[in-house]
């Protein structure tokens, strides 16, 4: 018999009306459905609900004139190349627009006008790219602030920790940093907390202070390339340091003092003249 959470995950993964149940990893579910009426009944109602949610998800009224507005904005920003033909192949919801009088003078002015608008748009775009804040970037401070909360959620909430397999040191896509002196035995999906693809490794040793390492797949952050020798944040009894390496951001959160924090990392040599 599958555990309830395992059973629901498998049921939820099957698309209604699909062959998903025949996939090898669904064999335990298929067996259970064949042998257990309650499971079969639950699966049937989950599938019915799924169908309705899927149908409603796709029912979104499209505002009138959408395609026309998109084409107009494309024409506005079209650079010096040939203007985008606004005459649509078949944009469905467009009302026919009367064609302007075809005088060559007007067309010349129109093209020149579009070029000026396009050049201005390019300047604005270039300025925006260069100077506007980039909201997708994580900042080190944000990480340091948030990670203590993530750690507390992991420690105090009903976290689903998964044991690493025998001989498995880490998850292939979330490698542990070479500077880590401790080893991990459990990991948990931290994507929901971090809002990025992330896992947390439990580094707590039996009876010792609690420690967790977040590994986040993110490469735009203003963190150092090596772990800080001393914690960058030490509030609420948590020592926190973060760094990045090869497209991954590491955040180490340790309960205790600076010595405990340092004990989890191999010392990084300091180059005096670097």
């Amino acid at each position: 018999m599958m555990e309830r959470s395992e059973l629901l995950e498998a049921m939820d993964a099957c698309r209604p009306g699909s062959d998903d149940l025949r996939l090898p990893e669904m064999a335990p579910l298929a067996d259970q459905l064949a042998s257990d009426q309650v499971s079969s009944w639950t699966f049937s109602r989950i599938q019915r609900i799924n169908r309705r949610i899927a149908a409603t998800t796709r029912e979104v009224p499209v505002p009138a004139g959408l395609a026309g507005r998109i084409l107009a904005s494309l024409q506005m920003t079209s650079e010096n190349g040939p203007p985008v033909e606004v005459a649509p192949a078949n944009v469905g919801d467009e009302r026919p627009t009367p064609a302007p009088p075809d005088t060559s003078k007007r067309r010349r002015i129109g093209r020149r006008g579009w070029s000026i608008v396009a050049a201005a748009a390019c300047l604005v775009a270039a300025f925006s790219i260069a100077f506007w804040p980039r909201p997708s970037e994580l900042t080190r401070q944000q990480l340091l602030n948030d990670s203590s909360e993530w750690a507390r959620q992991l420690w105090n909430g009903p976290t689903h920790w998964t044991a690493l397999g025998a001989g498995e040191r880490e998850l292939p896509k979330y490698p542990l940093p070479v500077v880590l002196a401790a080893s991990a035995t459990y990991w948990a999906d931290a994507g929901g907390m971090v809002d990025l693809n992330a896992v947390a490794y439990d580094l707590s040793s039996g009876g010792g202070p609690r420690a967790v390492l977040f590994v986040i797949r993110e490469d735009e952050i203003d963190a150092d390339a090596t772990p800080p020798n001393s914690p960058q944040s030490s509030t609420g009894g948590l020592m926190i340091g973060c760094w990045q390496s090869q497209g991954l951001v590491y955040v180490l959160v340790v309960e205790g003092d600076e010595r405990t924090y340092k004990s989890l990392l191999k010392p990084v040599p300091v180059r005096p003249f670097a």
Partner: protein
Amino acid sequence: MADEASAAGRLPINGLAARDGRSDIDAASKSPAPIDLDLPRLVADHAEVLYRYAFRLTGSVADAEDLTQQTFLIAHQKLSQVREPAGARGWLFAVLRRVYLKSQRKSRRLPLAGFSFEIESVPDEIVDQLVVDREVLQAAIDELPDPYKLVLMSYYFEDLSYREIADRFELPVGTVMSRLSRAKSHLRSRLFEPEVVAAGRHSQREQGQGGA
């Protein structure tokens, strides 16, 4: 919808390059020569489906239209990357996801607890008569963090299998199944809880009247 899915290729959401769909966009350009894609035709064929998708991600008419427009603006500049007409829709979806993720840096958090809602507890008649309220559904989707929302939309909107989703986002199958289940459980709780509470009140009233 399934053809959209297969065309969509891989969209890893690991790292920014992956999160913003860059590698998915690259994946659409495998064959040697660029093809001549007609932009107005592209808009006519794909604007509506992209808008619907954008609406589910953003939950707002204005944001969805902006997102769709931005997608086509980027598509306009990078159209030469598309070398397979069949891959155009998947490529546009990937561009849209990239633009969407670029615009997000919020920290919505799905509580680790709070999924105690049991689907078995919902009376049959409520399941049978369920009419999914669009606003309630959208509000529930809006509450999900992006890693959950994108997985859920790939499942519901694009009809991708959990394996295809795992492949697209470069996630372990188990993580996809777990995120799907938690996200769906969240939707069910939002959709059914008011019904269940109302049914409970109704039944209490009936019992009260019977006893009186």
